[in-house]
């Protein structure tokens, strides 16, 4: 039995107002100043600032309230209870698997803690293309610094594990710069289990920071409760209809809404894919047919290396070294750029992500302790062949992303696999397998190069994953170009703000959590000022 304090259980004992699931029954109707949909990166920052401004806040989360006592570092339980669609969310043609969170804290509860600011060249593109003139590094800096201070974000000071170190070692031999990743942790045990919920509360996710702050300020949290529809009248949201859902997201009672939430202002922060889907279900105005479009994924290509020595990729900070070299070897709108990182390897993740099966696979399974999985996040949204996907609705109202993998993106996958394989061989790999259904192990860089160059790069054949969903409610200074105004308010709905990764008009070219914190910090400070006249910041909560 762990002796680690559980801040969630302690908060519940202090009398937090939590309804739904195993907690108090859902009330039929709740009135508040601001209703927040979701409890992830954007929702958490919004909740803390708005309660700090003295507003009565209700937070609605579709997933359960889990905490460190529940986090047993076991993949099956974690995937089933804390990931969208049991970690098996896929794009419409099944070509891309999407990892997104679905519990209190959203994806921040299960991410790998990598925390990067929005790259300056991405912001410059937004200024030039979407008219977002005040989206400059300088203007945003105080809001990013405030979020970094609040969430203890700093470069990882401990030596990287071998899984990450070999990226640095291989890159260095090729003269490629690789650097240390900033992480949002405090007193990290270096377990490597971030993706299954931090069992020591070291990860400064929304679950253990902003959401507890808001609940201590009197906010109400509804869990295992999904907002089915916003009721819209005359350019305003008048209420939201919520239903209780089971662990697999099915309605508890198909007969009708469980709870009506009425607020003066609404903050939509269900994350990309889910946020545009709610607006689609609600028949929100979309005069320029932009809603749900330009949804970006940072499509991820992978190569798996078998090293001479033990890697033990399941232990230690999951991501501590990265390289942006290949984001800058060509123009932003040239061949697609990619960011290099590695992935932690636990049994299910390893087994599912290795292409192929049978005897050859059995050999690879036995080399698991020596395995390294390198990944390339491709920067989509900057080229007319990388316009992202479109969110649609299934007949049951659940979201489905149609994201066609173009030849342009798949050319990037090939270039990324070549770059990664070369780095892995330089780091001492004895075998490298490209993430491709026809991929085989190569024992030299020359053989791997010839093999990867010969592979047909097609959807489904090329293994592509995703852990960063962005866009679908993009920001723009002109309503003909975006769903969301530069101040975060929906262009056609006066009392609805959108505060999550869905507002990004392109992908970022960096893991998105800190970008969501920083941008939403600025948007919410503005909203709090408009609603209350008060100035609030995050960092003093720390």
């Amino acid at each position, binding site marked *: 039995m762990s002796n680690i304090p559980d801040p969630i259980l302690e908060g519940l004992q202090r009398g937090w107002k939590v309804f739904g699931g195993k907690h108090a029954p859902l009330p039929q109707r709740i009135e508040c100043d601001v209703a927040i949909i979701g409890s992830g990166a954007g929702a958490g920052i919004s909740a803390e600032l708005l309660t700090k401004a003295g507003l009565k806040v209700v937070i609605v989360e579709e997933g359960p309230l889990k905490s460190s006592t529940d986090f047993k570092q076991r993949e099956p339980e974690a995937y089933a209870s804390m990931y969208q669609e049991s970690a098996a969310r896929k794009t419409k043609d099944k070509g891309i698997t999407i990892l997104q969170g679905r519990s209190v804290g959203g994806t921040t509860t299960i991410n790998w803690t990598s925390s990067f600011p929005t790259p300056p060249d991405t912001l410059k593109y937004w200024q030039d293309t979407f008219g977002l003139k005040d989206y400059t590094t300088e203007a945003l800096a105080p809001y990013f610094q405030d979020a970094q201070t609040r969430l203890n974000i700093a470069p990882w000071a401990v030596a990287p594990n071998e899984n990450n170190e070999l990226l640095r070692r291989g890159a260095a031999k090729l003269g490629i710069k690789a650097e240390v990743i900033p992480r949002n942790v405090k007193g990290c045990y270096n377990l490597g289990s971030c993706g299954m919920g931090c069992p020591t509360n070291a990860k400064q996710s929304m679950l253990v920071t902003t959401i507890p702050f808001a609940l201590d300020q009197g906010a109400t949290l509804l869990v295992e409760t999904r907002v089915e529809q916003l009721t819209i009248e005359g350019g305003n949201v008048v209420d939201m209809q919520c239903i209780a859902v089971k*662990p697999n997201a099915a309605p508890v009672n198909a007969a009708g809404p469980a709870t009506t939430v009425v607020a003066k202002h609404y903050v939509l922060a269900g994350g990309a894919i889910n946020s545009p889907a709610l607006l689609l279900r609600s028949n929100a105005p979309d005069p320029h047919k932009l809603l749900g479009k330009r949804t970006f994924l940072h499509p991820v290509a992978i190569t798996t290396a078998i090293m001479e020595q033990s890697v033990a990729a399941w232990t230690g900070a999951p991501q501590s070294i990265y390289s942006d070299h290949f984001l800058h070897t060509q123009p932003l709108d040239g061949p697609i750029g990619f960011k290099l990182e590695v992935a932690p390897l636990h049994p299910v993740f390893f*087994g599912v992500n290795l292409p*192929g099966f049978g005897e050859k696979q059995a050999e690879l399974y036995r080399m698991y302790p020596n395995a390294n999985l390198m990944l390339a996040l491709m920067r989509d949204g900057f080229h007319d062949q990388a316009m992202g996907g479109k969110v649609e609705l299934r007949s049951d109202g659940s979201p489905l992303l149609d994201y066609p993998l173009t030849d342009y993106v798949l050319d990037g996958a090939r270039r990324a696999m070549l770059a990664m394989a070369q780095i892995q061989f330089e780091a001492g790999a004895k075998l490298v397998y490209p993430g491709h259904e026809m991929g085989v192990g190569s024992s030299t860089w020359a053989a791997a190069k010839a093999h990867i160059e010969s592979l047909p790069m097609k959807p489904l054949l090329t293994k592509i994953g995703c852990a960063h969903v962005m866009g679908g409610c993009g920001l723009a200074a002109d309503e003909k170009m975006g769903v969301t105004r530069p101040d975060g308010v929906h262009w056609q709905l006066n009392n609805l703000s959108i505060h999550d990764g869905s507002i990004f008009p392109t992908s970022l070219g960096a893991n998105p959590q800190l970008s969501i914190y920083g941008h939403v910090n600025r948007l919410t400070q503005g909203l709090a000022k408009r609603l209350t006249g008060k100035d609030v910041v995050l960092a003093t909560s720390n």
Partner: protein
Amino acid sequence: MSNPKLKRRSFLKLGVASAVVLAVGGGAIALMKPGLIDGKLSPAARAVMAKVGQAMLVGTLPSDPKALHASTDALLLRIDALLSGLPTFATAELDQLLGLLASAPGRRFLVGLSSSWDVATTTEVGAALQSMSASSTELRMQAYQGLHDVVCASYFSGEESWAVLAYPGPMAV
């Protein structure tokens, strides 16, 4: 063997696809039995997944017949556990997919397996799966990948797999 009529750009529209397969096979949609019953593998789907699991995990599951039987049963139990956590639309898709694979036309045209599931050898099933994995027909590749994900996610969910991997398990805190 693939059939050009099965080529489609869109996702596993199995309602339509299964009708096509059954029409090709000379059957009728009514012949297709559900793949899932009360959210768990039907007897016919258990037979499919047992053979698919054994073929995908050959070299990993034990070769001794008695031990293989026990490991296969454990795998099928874990597949049922995995199914219980999936959203309704996903279980509906798997219900259709497994029902289709269990039908003779589905087995022949989608999997490319001439022997019935109960007599097919691991080698025959493995060859059929290999053909599906790099098929020119999107539906066959989608079906293969669905089966691969279900088998691997279920197998590696079990602590028995840790010994195969030499995974020591999570660190105590």
